[in-house]
């Protein structure tokens, strides 16, 4: 194989394809093949083996988990390095033609959780319309296109919204262990939350088609499609470049990619691809990735990560 194979996060997908395209057109190597499988799906493929047919790089919109590092190791993928490429925010988006939303994390939880504490008990989520949650919200049906469990955005959503919000309900706070986890993290399955497992273009398509629908996707999609969709404010903060860059927007998170070190030097071009990605021309403040909606890391962090990308130390949690 003389062509890099990249899988993983659909959040990072637009950036990875942009870099791949640039890399293919300028480096003399073949253009890498990038597939959008979601962070979890990507890591699964990435860790499935070390052989030629396994991907060289996986993109991620959350950090790798210890369980995944272990799975990798079990399959002979011992040396994996991590590069932080920049930042992103999870955006609660809607078609521009729809009514704008201002949400709190609690309200988001109420809209998408499987069970809701009511009268001291956990009951199946009763909310059908946004206005059922809060009369101030529009009288639209709740239809949320959200990432499925193979997506890092889903994990981030759980961490940043649901885990945070559920602590505000004393009924759930009182729980512990698995039952608390389920109460906090389970998502409704009555059709109001539609799990999208491919990539966010699907979500985007659905949003433009259904003006009342809400989609959970990453900031770059909002940035690139500002003419079509709008982001809701979360806890009073708008999803803007500046807000995310300084983490004022509550749903901010870093983006990564992971490299299979065993493939560096074996598969032609891996090193050069990493170099292209970590060049200022790409991920810098004025780089072409920022034009694609990537929120650049601070200068110092970029420098550090660029240095790391030469050494490729093993990832440590």
């Amino acid at each position, binding site marked *: 194989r003389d*062509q890099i194979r990249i899988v993983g996060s659909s959040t990072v997908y*637009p950036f990875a*394809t*942009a870099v*791949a*395209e640039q890399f*293919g*057109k*300028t*480096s*003399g190597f*073949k*253009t890498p*093949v*990038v*597939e*959008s499988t979601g962070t979890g799906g990507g890591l699964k493929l990435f860790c499935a083996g070390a052989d030629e*047919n396994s991907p060289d790089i996986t993109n991620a919109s959350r950090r790798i988990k210890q369980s995944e590092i272990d799975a990798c190791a079990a399959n002979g993928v011992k040396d994996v390095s991590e590069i932080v490429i920049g930042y992103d925010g999870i955006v609660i988006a809607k078609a*521009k033609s729809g009514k704008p939303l201002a949400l709190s994390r609690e309200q988001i939880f109420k809209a998408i959780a499987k069970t809701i504490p009511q009268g001291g008990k956990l009951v199946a989520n009763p909310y059908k319309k946004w206005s059922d949650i809060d009369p101030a919200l529009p009288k639209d049906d709740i239809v949320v296109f959200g990432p499925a469990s193979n997506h890092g955005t889903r994990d981030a959503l759980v961490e940043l919204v649901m885990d945070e919000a559920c602590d505000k309900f004393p009924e759930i706070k009182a729980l512990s262990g698995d039952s608390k986890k389920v109460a906090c993290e389970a998502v409704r399955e009555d059709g109001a939350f539609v799990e999208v497992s491919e990539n966010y*273009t*699907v979500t*985007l*398509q659905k949003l*433009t088609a259904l003006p009342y629908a809400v989609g959970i996707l990453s900031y770059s*999609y909002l940035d*690139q*499609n*500002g*003419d*079509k969709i709008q982001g809701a404010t979360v806890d009073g903060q708008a999803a803007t470049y500046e807000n995310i860059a300084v983490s004022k927007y509550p749903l901010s998170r870093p983006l990564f990619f992971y490299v299979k070190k065993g493939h560096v030097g074996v598969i032609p071009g891996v090193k050069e691809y990493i170099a292209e990605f970590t060049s200022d*021309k790409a991920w810098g403040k*004025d780089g*072409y990735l920022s*034009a*694609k909606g990537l929120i650049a890391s601070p200068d110092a962090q970029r420098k550090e990560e660029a240095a790391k990308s030469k050494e490729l130390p093993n990832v440590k949690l």
Partner: protein
Amino acid sequence: MVDQVRVSATAEKVNARLQRRYAVEKRFRFYGIASIVVALSFLAILLFSIISQGHTAFMQAEMRLSVTFDPSVIDPDGGRQKAVLSSADYTALVRNALLARFPEAEDRLARREMIALISQGADLELRKMVMGDPSLIGTTRDVWLPAAASVDQLRKGHMSRDADKGGQFTQRQLGWIDALESSGNLSSRFNKWLFTSGDSRQPELAGLWGAVVGSFYSLLVTVTLSFPLGVATAIYLEEFSTRNRWTDLIEVNINNLAAVPSIVFGLLGLEIFLNVFNLPRSAPLVGGLALTLVSLPTIIIASRVALKAVPPWIREAALGLGASRLQMVMHHVLPLAMPGILTGTIIGMARAVGESAPLLMIGMVAFIVDVPASPLDPSTALPVQIYLWAASPERAFVERTSAAIIVLLCFLAVMNATAIFLRKKFERRW
């Protein structure tokens, strides 16, 4: 005489109902015409909507800039080494050229807005120029570079100038665009990228060529496999075998395969070709194999019809002269059936060209920029490219999707016209 009475009664009774019966007749006839009109108007609407949406994609906005090929940017140490030239920062050239055009853009925001007017791939064009002719370095040339897709869309009226209505441009940008426009430095030119390059994240640089070549390779594999296999099967069934359980089994299988949903062939390809035989994902080779299975029944059935149409006395005459069965087939039957077989094959191929569901299953939906150089390279195919572009959020891909459909339909039209031509030309009446 009794009957005579009854007879006239018949005529009278018939007369009494005639008007009503003719009204029913008329209505029924009208339903028939209406159905055809409805069906054909669906066709008309479909074609109209696609052509009206797609024709604009064949032209695209380009911007004329006077670019200075600054040696200090391209090749600071003057070695003219390929590697140096190749990795130079051509974006800087573009930026400088824009700055020279609009010196008023001084602050960072203004520069960002200015840069946003031109395609992010403009530097690649410059790079191509320099790599092709290093003597350009040091000169200043007027160069037509692709404008950003949003500028293109604005000029085509697909995007509002009004920020409230989804317009993406600031007043300053609009001013620049108008200035370029009125000075003749911004105009629509033939969209050569559409026909020469592979896919791209940049709509203005995205092309169909990769998909066309991918389709071509898939089809090559399909033709080389399904034509001989299909014709051989048809010959065996029509000319050699006698009807027995074995041939019945084959026949039942063929008829069923002809009606099996094509996505099932995709599942077969995924499981057998990819998982068992470990063939490469996304490769036209695998796509071609799957499409072979899709088109094989069509070819077999058409070939059998063509063979059946050769009158039996030709066979008798040949055999009566002492030709063996194979000689009879090769010398007489097959040449006579060939036009029909070719027609069937072309129609089967046309079906394969338009097929996408099985290709999704074997990974030909990846984002692939490079034009494949062999049937083993990753690639998409025309219909899959349509599917991908149809799912792309950028507004500019809508017209490109339609344009891709127009191209695909043209291919199909050519193939079918060839088939019809063959059939007409070699039509034989015995």
